[in-house]
């Protein structure tokens, strides 16, 4: 367990170096971006602004300052407003978390019954149809699904808003109306992954002796599947849900942007376009940390739930 946590910390450190280095390697200059190519600005003004933002210092010094700040809980300040990165993240993290959690929940809610139905008759026509649809779903990037949903449900039918966000504490119904399409777009892509994984586990589980024993005892098929096979298949599938959580978090970046949701994803895109390194590097690190933490928690949870994993570890 200590090794697993240490690996996660090392991953986080490596991520911070990569994120920082990649951003600095990108062409573009936040100072010019901030000035908006204002006419009549002298090189002296540009240099002064660069100095004010700390961009005149070496990359190593900038990295040291950033990491030092992170350790002190100071994430820095945006180059473009007086807001600290902490405040900017605080304004938006709720939207991203809500979108991610609802999307993952929706994905699981869609995937589990679908996988069960598919696994009941492996290689039957329903299984094949679900398999085909899953492949199609996985082929769709989240932003394509977003645009498709947007055109159908917002523009053509006018049922749901095309953009924007209403916080949960302002109006629950409006919050849900604004959440439906983005969450559906993410779930449309994430749930097929869970379906395929869970279906494979279920088919394997249904082939186990304990299933035959249960059926031999006259336990109804549905009960066998739900009470015995599914319970055993869910444990390995838990790992995939962890990965899906990370995948959804990543997909949320584009989905938020398409639907105009004020979340971390759109903050990351805007910061990237402006070259607001101060914000972007911390947001990207936070998203990576979210993914690393989720997989860590899932791993630890799996170990806690599955005695075999603990045994393997002890043997190892």
């Amino acid at each position, binding site marked *: 367990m200590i090794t697993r946590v240490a690996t996660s910390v090392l991953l986080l450190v490596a991520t911070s170096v990569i994120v920082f280095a990649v951003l600095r390697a*990108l*062409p*573009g*200059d*936040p100072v*010019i*971006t*901030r*000035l*908006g*190519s*204002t*006419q*009549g*600005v*002298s*090189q*002296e*003004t*540009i240099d*002064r*602004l660069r100095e*004010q933002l700390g961009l005149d210092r070496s990359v190593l010094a900038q990295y040291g300052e950033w990491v030092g700040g992170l350790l002190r809980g100071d994430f820095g300040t*945006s180059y*473009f*407003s*007086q*807001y600290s990165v902490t405040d*900017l993240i605080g*304004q*938006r993290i709720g939207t991203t978390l809500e979108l991610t959690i609802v999307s993952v929940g929706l994905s699981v809610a869609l995937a589990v019954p679908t996988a069960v139905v598919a696994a009941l008759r492996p290689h039957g026509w329903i299984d094949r149809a679900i398999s085909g649809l899953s492949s199609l779903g996985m082929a769709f990037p989240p932003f394509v699904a977003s645009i498709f949903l*947007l*055109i159908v449900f*917002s*523009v053509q039918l*006018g049922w749901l*808003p*095309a*953009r*924007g966000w209403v916080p949960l504490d302002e109006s629950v119904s409006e919050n849900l109306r604004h959440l439906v399409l983005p969450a559906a777009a993410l779930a449309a892509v994430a749930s097929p992954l869970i379906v395929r994984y869970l279906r494979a586990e279920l088919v394997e589980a249904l082939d186990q002796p304990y299933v035959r024993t249960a059926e031999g005892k006259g336990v109804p098929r549905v009960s066998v599947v739900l009470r015995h096979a599914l319970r055993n298949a869910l444990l390995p599938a838990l790992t995939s849900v962890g990965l899906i959580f990370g995948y959804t978090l990543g997909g949320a970046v584009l989905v938020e*942007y*398409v*639907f*105009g949701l*004020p979340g971390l994803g*759109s*903050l990351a*895109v*805007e*910061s990237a*376009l*402006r*070259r607001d390194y101060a914000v972007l590097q911390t947001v990207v690190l936070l998203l990576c940390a979210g993914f690393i933490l989720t997989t860590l928690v899932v791993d630890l949870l799996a170990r806690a739930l599955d005695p075999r994993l603990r045994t393997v570890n002890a043997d190892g």
Partner: protein
Amino acid sequence: MKRLVALSLPAVAAVTLAACGGGSSSTTTSSADGGGGTATETTAATTAAPGGSGGSLTVGAASGIPQLNPVLKGTAFEEALFPLLWGGLSRLGPDGTVEPDLATRWTPSADNRRWTFELRDGVRFSNGKALTANDVVETLKYYQDPDTATQLKTALEPVKSVTADGRARVVFTLSRANVLLPEVLVPVKIVDVDSLRTIDREPAVTGPFTVSEFVPGDHVYLRRNADYWGDPAPLDEIRLVKAADSTSAVTSLRSGDLDALWSVPSSDIPQLRNEPEISIVEPDVTGVYVSWEMDLSSPPFDDLRARQALAYATDREAIFKAAYYDQGLVSATNTPLADNSPWFAEGMTDYSYDLDKARELFEQAGVRELTWWGVAGQYPEWNTSGQILQASLKKIGVDLKIENRELSSWPAKFYPAGRRYPGLVVPNFQSFAPDPYFQLSFLLRGRCECNWDSPEFSDLFDEAVATPDRDARKAVWDRAQRLINEQVPIIVPVQTTVATATQKDVVGVWVEGGGLPHFESAGFAE
């Protein structure tokens, strides 16, 4: 006046949009009786009479608002926000005239080098502080501070000093005569310098609205300012929100999620005009012109023949149709002012498409290859223009290489003014009030990245600005335009518009010549 280097980057572009001032319309010299300028032309359009009362208006744009300080404005959409929050000494009215705002009257000295502004009584910032002459003085100091990276620096460069004469009178002393100072000051918003540290969180404003919620880059929600000194705004609330991009913004307008959309893409305007639920608001006389910049300080464009050749090789009609969807006007004379402007000079050389002349001049100048330095992923009209130019140049043996860069790295090659970029043609556009003062100021030394350094033009500019009589001033502006027409410091293929689209029930919206929308009097039809 404002200058747009690039309009809306879904976020950044905003970036490049550089504004140097808000902008006022063409006016004659301001009257000494305090009535403000005397309008000579209408530059703004309005959807209807000021609107009904109450309600919330959602205005979208493809660029967000990253910060609230009007002095540091860097993106175009911010300019739609600032008149809602802050007042200046003067402002632009819906009919295009300059009118009193925080000042009730202004008086120039006989030589137009000293201007006295009388402040309105009873104006308070939203933090309760009373507006005094000292606030104006401190604001101007802040604008002129070398550490303040404001887009108005060059516009305010002739202001030698600003002093308070009591609590309610301010005196501007200029280094050279300027009969248009009230117009120049329209975009200068008076701020409470003492509260600058919290301007993004709790801005102290003097305008008809205050900020109720601000998420940088995403949205700003405004509510009616109960303590506003003037007539209360018709609307309870205005929400300025960012759309992912222009396509998504138009979709949101069509679906009714947006009540208004600023900077509608040219490609969508013809279709939106035919939609019964949508109105397009645009000025009668546009102040937006497309500018292709070249470096006049290095070969080949230090040679007049190369510039004239490029002007003749530009198929303006084709570009107007294919890239700008017939929105605006073709600039046959290659000058900034639109030919429907009352300030447009007659009798200038016509640079209509003529490849024979272009070939001859390019050969004389020895030009065989050029590079188009555009922006990737945005401004499709620029790319289309570049392709049309490329095809034209190919016919006369000149190779035009098209290179497009991502917006944030695009300016590095040619910005700021003074940088050398031999052989590059840089597409761009400028957005100003239609008055020649603003339209032509871009070509002054040190402002245009074209690096045109013409003492003759500078002298004409100064002479025009110092000439109170409108007809006499027009004669000087005519000479300046003829010089531009002859010297071709930039290529101006078309004048276009920055249009705002609204739902049909939105009224009271008007747009300046430069495309800046005004929602101060907006409302909903009863």
